[in-house]
């Protein structure tokens, strides 16, 4: 889809250079993360092993760059800072849902009421919608089966699980998370 507004020639140049800068930041962050992973995994500091690491990291970043997978979906550094709030929220949601499902399973009468429901995904980017669907799947008691036309098809185990998804709290949280992403330029 992309933006239909024509920002004009100068703005085009500016946008191009801004994208170039963002691309450099993405390469830089990937390099740092890969280097840290290499060090944490090997914990050897002999010149030979570190040299292998440098070669591996540079090759990986260069190839990723060539394959054009270091884009705002592959390395969305813009939302990294927001993960600090999202991850604790996610852990608490998952734990709450786990206790709910555990209670249902251990109940002698097992009062489940499986159902299908449609949850609206109001995220503007594909990445945001995928995060939304994965968040729903990760909380036990709900599984996302399909995602199309901004709607997630969800299988829920009980009415409680349904209300949890339909309340829109998840949708709000993911919308806030993805609001850090730049304006999408997908087709």
């Amino acid at each position, binding site marked *: 889809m992309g933006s239909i507004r024509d920002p004009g020639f100068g703005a085009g140049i500016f946008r191009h250079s801004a994208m170039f800068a963002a691309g450099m930041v993405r390469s830089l962050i990937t390099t740092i993360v890969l280097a840290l992973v290499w060090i*944490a995994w090997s*914990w050897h500091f002999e010149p030979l092993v570190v040299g292998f690491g440098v070669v591996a990291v540079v090759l990986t970043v260069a190839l990723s760059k060539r394959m054009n997978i270091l884009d705002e979906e592959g390395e969305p550094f813009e939302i990294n800072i927001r993960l600090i709030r999202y991850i604790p929220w996610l*852990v608490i949601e998952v734990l709450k849902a786990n206790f709910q499902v555990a209670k249902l*399973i251990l109940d002698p009468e097992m009062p*489940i009421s499986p159902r299908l429901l449609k949850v609206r995904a109001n995220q503007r980017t594909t990445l945001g919608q995928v995060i939304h669907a*994965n968040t729903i799947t*990760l909380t036990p008691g709900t*599984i996302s*089966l399909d995602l199309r036309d901004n709607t997630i098809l969800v*299988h829920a185990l009980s009415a409680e699980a349904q209300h949890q998804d339909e309340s829109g709290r998840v949708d709000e949280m993911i919308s806030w998370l993805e609001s850090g992403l730049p304006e999408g330029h997908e087709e």
Partner: protein
Amino acid sequence: MSVLEIISAIFLLGGAIFCVIGGIGVVRLPDFYTRCHGAGVTDTAGAAGILVGLMFIAQPLVIVKLVTILVFLWLTSAASSHALGKAAFASGLRVDDEPIDWTTGLSAHPPAMSDEELAAEESE
């Protein structure tokens, strides 16, 4: 036993209990989709409990690796649950949204056609 070992033991026990609950869920729940929910308990709370429990008695460098394992487990278990559910849904497995008699795994409502009627229809 030091304090860290006791905290670790509590987390390990909690994780193990959630793993067992997930297993019971997979056995007790009536159909494919609901069993996915049971497996989800083992994937998330069970794995998290055991890995967090191990983090309390591990070396600093090992903690980094345990955190990474937890992150990848949570990322991939969501993706695989979705793939499983979507594959079942796409190949036409019916989703029961009517009450289910869990002792037999069958729908609590009588079928629209009896077995004899179905056999008669097939032979025609």
